[in-house]
């Protein structure tokens, strides 16, 4: 955890027959990251393209089957034990099986569609017959009526009567299209078509898509053949299905009967088909999950094999991979298992090779540390073997958060939430959701738990529980007045001289301050100092971490030329300021005998510090001293001068050292060995490597081949940044004060504005008001104080770590180790 794992670049020599099984074993182990040995070969020209295509085809089939299964709402059981990648013989079986299943399902659904089409037509016909029944009866009556009416008066009536019955067309149409259809009929016939329609109450099922459609039965009466053909054209245009409808009543009734029996038969057949399909799908669904895992694993294996290189003699495959040195035995074992499983005679073997290339960064994490490591990695992945700030972040992060969030009650809520997630970890992790906010919370469950716990501690020290204080250990203040004085005056400022028992409150802030009017003045000075103290300690800690790095990377000169001046600079100026704060706390007292150390003479630490930097001085009040102790002025002067002297060391030290070192080294030629050239035979490997020096400059030898001027510029930027940042970063830690103050005030305001509403009643109605007020108060506490304030405190803490702490030592130039692992591959695809 402190440093990333040591990595080794290894070469794998695998027999082609054993390659598949070996890679499968490695994927199960998940400890190696393969490198692409043919980056210039495009994806379609690689060796195992055909196999990848086969996998793609199988995946497509699986997707089709899955879609069908989902359409029928069959439950797909999860696999408990994910299956291993199938061996080549099983692949063929699987392929055949998939093919068969797909065809079966295809055929079944085709049949089902046909049957349904039939069924639909018959139902529609049935409806047409039933509905038109009514029209015809009505029409006949109307016809007779109109006949009798018009007989005497109009000639047209007679004509109609002579022509006998009108022709008609019956059919079914989608309901939305009816108005347009009607209008069209009107237009083509100039109003000579008589349209009757009735809506079907029950929706019909579309055979292909399975959607429900509402339809309308219509009957169009007209005169003449010409009109009939036109109407038919319109009907086809509107996708109306027309059905023959015998004009006579009895025929119609016979037909209805026939249709009904046919419908019943069809229904039976349909049910049988449905049952059969259900059975097939259910049997497929059982295997579906494990099949899809198998296929995905196969695909991943072939993709990996594509990264390999073929030996010239075509006798073995060569692969290159990064392996954590601690896992080498596992890899060996996996390889041995792989070749055993394939039954090949020649074992595959592993060969570590030297390289100049920067290995990937791999921090082994467990579920506790992963969240913290993610915080660091999102800033930048650590350079290889750099010390890892995540280790310290585990505590400093929740702690600094808690300084801002300090409240016992809110901390308790947060801790309970975190604890719930931690305890229910297993069952919650099993439930995969796509809710991003929840996933973020869940990934940071240990962070939340620790943040809650630390907030409880700081809340205890701040003596804040939902903005109220508890007096557990007895306040250190007492009231020195008698009843008369108390009655006559309305407000008092207690004088520490007569009302303080000379012993501070046992733990944290005295509860008397909670009710005091000048609480903020006191808390401000306390919290401001607190944040500076922790800021300076945190930064010094960060600077000290850089020693560890310099030491590890064998840059001893940097310790003297960079670290020591930096730390001296920081200590002499800022640690001294911290010292002044403590000294002021200890030395100045209202009870002091010496007049120079009483309340009125206490100097402001900030003004003293500014004067120290500017070499100026203030005239002290009469009877007071400007400084806190003897010789402080001269000591300060020395401190500032020494600190200033450190700046040129930081600025010129390293570049000059590099210059002289490079002169010394000039005669020596560096022998560098490169990453292995692809396609070489193993026994010749060493010769070839030596004959091909790698031109790439590696990162660990930075600066060395850069010109002096560039080093100088780098160093100047670095120095200026450091010197300025000490001031700005110290000021930046004041956000601890600001946020903690804001949090305390906000929670007090919320209590006074909302909850007090329920407490100010002198009778029992107050209880009901309290019930309502508490509800609102609780909701606001959760939403504003815990969620919003928590989020803002979290972001500020993150900034304090990324910028103020990590800038002191962290390079973060590495790249992450991404092992070839079936588990991660499957999880990623699940998320998609």
């Amino acid at each position, binding site marked *: 955890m402190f440093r990333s794992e040591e990595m080794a670049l290894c070469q794998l020599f695998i027999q082609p027959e054993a390659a598949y099984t070996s890679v499968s074993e490695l994927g199960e182990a998940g400890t190696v990251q393969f490198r692409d040995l043919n980056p210039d070969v495009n994806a379609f020209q690689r060796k195992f393209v055909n196999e990848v295509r086969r996998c793609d085809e199988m995946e497509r089939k699986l997707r089709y089957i899955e879609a069908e299964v989902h359409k029928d709402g069959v439950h797909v059981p999860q696999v408990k034990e994910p299956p291993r990648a199938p061996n080549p013989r099983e692949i063929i079986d699987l392929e055949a099986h998939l093919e068969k299943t797909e065809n079966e399902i295809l055929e079944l659904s085709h049949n089902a569609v046909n049957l349904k089409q039939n069924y639909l037509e018959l139902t529609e016909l049935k409806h047409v017959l039933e509905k038109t029944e009514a029209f015809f009866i009505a029409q006949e009556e109307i016809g007779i009526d109109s006949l009798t009416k018009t007989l005497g008066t109009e000639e047209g009536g007679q004509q109609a009567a002579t022509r006998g019955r009108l022709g008609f067309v019956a059919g079914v149409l989608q309901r939305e299209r009816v108005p347009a259809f009607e209008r069209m009929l009107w237009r083509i016939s100039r109003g000579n078509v008589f349209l009757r329609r009735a809506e079907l109450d029950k929706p019909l099922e579309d055979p292909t898509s399975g959607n429900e459609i509402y339809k309308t039965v219509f009957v169009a009466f007209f005169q003449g053949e010409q009109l009939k053909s036109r109407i038919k054209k319109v009907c086809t245009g509107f996708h109306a299905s027309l059905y023959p409808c015998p004009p006579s009543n009895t025929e119609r009734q016979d037909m209805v009967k026939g249709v009904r029996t046919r419908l019943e038969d069809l229904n039976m057949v349909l049910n049988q088909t449905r049952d059969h399909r259900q059975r097939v799908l259910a049997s497929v669904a059982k295997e579906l999950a494990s099949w899809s895992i198998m296929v995905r694993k196969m695909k991943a294996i072939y993709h990996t094999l594509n990264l390999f290189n073929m030996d010239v003699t075509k006798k073995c495959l060569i692969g290159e991979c990064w392996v954590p040195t601690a896992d080498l035995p596992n890899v060996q074992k996996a390889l041995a298992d792989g070749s055993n499983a394939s039954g090949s005679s020649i074992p595959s073997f592993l060969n570590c090779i030297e390289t100049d290339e920067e290995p990937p960064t791999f921090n082994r994490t467990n579920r506790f540390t992963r969240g913290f490591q993610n915080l660091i990695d999102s800033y930048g992945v650590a350079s290889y073997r750099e010390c890892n700030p995540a280790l310290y972040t585990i505590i400093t992060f929740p702690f600094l958060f808690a300084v801002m969030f300090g409240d016992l009650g809110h901390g308790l809520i947060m801790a309970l939430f975190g604890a719930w997630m931690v305890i229910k970890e297993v069952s919650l992790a099993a439930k995969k959701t796509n809710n991003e906010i929840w996933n973020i919370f869940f990934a940071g469950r240990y962070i939340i738990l620790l943040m809650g716990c630390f907030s409880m501690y700081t809340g205890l020290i701040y003596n804040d529980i939902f903005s*109220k*204080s*508890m*007096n557990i250990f007895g306040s250190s203040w007492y009231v020195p007045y008698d*009843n008369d004085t*108390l*009655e006559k005056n309305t407000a008092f400022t207690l004088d520490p001289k007569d009302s303080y028992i000379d012993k501070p409150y046992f733990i944290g802030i005295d*509860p008397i301050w*909670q*009710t005091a009017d000048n609480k903020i003045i006191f808390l401000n000075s306390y919290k401001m100092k607190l944040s500076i103290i922790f800021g300076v300690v945190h930064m010094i800690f960060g600077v000290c971490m850089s020693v560890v790095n310099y030491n590890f990377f064998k840059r001893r000169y940097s310790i003297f030329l960079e670290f020591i001046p930096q730390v001296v600079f920081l200590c002499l100026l800022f640690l001294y300021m911290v010292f002044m704060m403590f000294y002021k706390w200890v030395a100045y007292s209202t009870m002091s005998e010496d007049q120079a150390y009483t309340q009125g003479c206490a100097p402001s630490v900030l003004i003293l510090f500014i004067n120290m930097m500017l070499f100026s001085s203030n005239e002290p009040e009469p009877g007071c001293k400007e400084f806190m102790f003897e010789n402080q002025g001269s000591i300060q002067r020395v401190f500032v001068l020494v600190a200033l002297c450190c700046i040129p060391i930081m600025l010129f030290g390293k570049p000059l050292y590099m210059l002289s070192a490079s002169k010394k080294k000039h005669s020596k030629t560096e022998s560098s060995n490169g990453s292995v050239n692809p396609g070489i035979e193993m026994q010749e490997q060493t010769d070839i490597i030596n004959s091909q020096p790698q031109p790439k400059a590696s990162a660990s030898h930075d600066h060395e081949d850069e010109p002096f001027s560039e080093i100088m510029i780098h160093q100047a930027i670095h120095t200026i940044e450091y010197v300025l940042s000490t001031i700005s970063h110290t000021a930046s830690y004041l956000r601890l004060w600001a946020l903690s103050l804001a949090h305390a005030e906000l929670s007090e305001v919320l209590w*006074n504005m909302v*909850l*007090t509403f*329920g*407490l*100010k*009643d*002198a*009778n*029992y109605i*107050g*209880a*009901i008001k*309290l*019930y309502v007020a*508490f*509800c609102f108060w*609780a*909701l606001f506490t959760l939403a504003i104080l815990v969620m919003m304030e928590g989020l803002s405190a979290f972001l500020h803490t993150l900034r304090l770590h990324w910028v103020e702490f990590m800038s002191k030592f962290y390079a973060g130039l590495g790249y992450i180790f991404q092992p070839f692992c079936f588990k991660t591959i499957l999880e990623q695809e699940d998320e998609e």
Partner: protein
Amino acid sequence: MACKFCGPKLSLCGLILSVWGIIQLTLMGVFYYIEAVALLEDLPLEEEGGHHTIEGFIHKVEVGYSQNAYNCWIAALLYVITLVISGHQFWMNNRSSVSM
């Protein structure tokens, strides 16, 4: 019995809220009962142009404390009722989802 009127989320919300309410209001009642100074600000004291004697004032404050203590406990009791109702709802929701 199947009077299900809130969904799973609302009933869970009510459950958590009422547990919190019961704990906090009971504790607040206890603190009012032992007359904690920190809660002095939240007492129902009518401002009637100042009090006359210290004893009178103290008496009034004591009455206020005990009044608030009882109010807190009554409110806590109301939350017990809420707890029962939302617990019942929660149970109904769970049962119906299981049976489905």
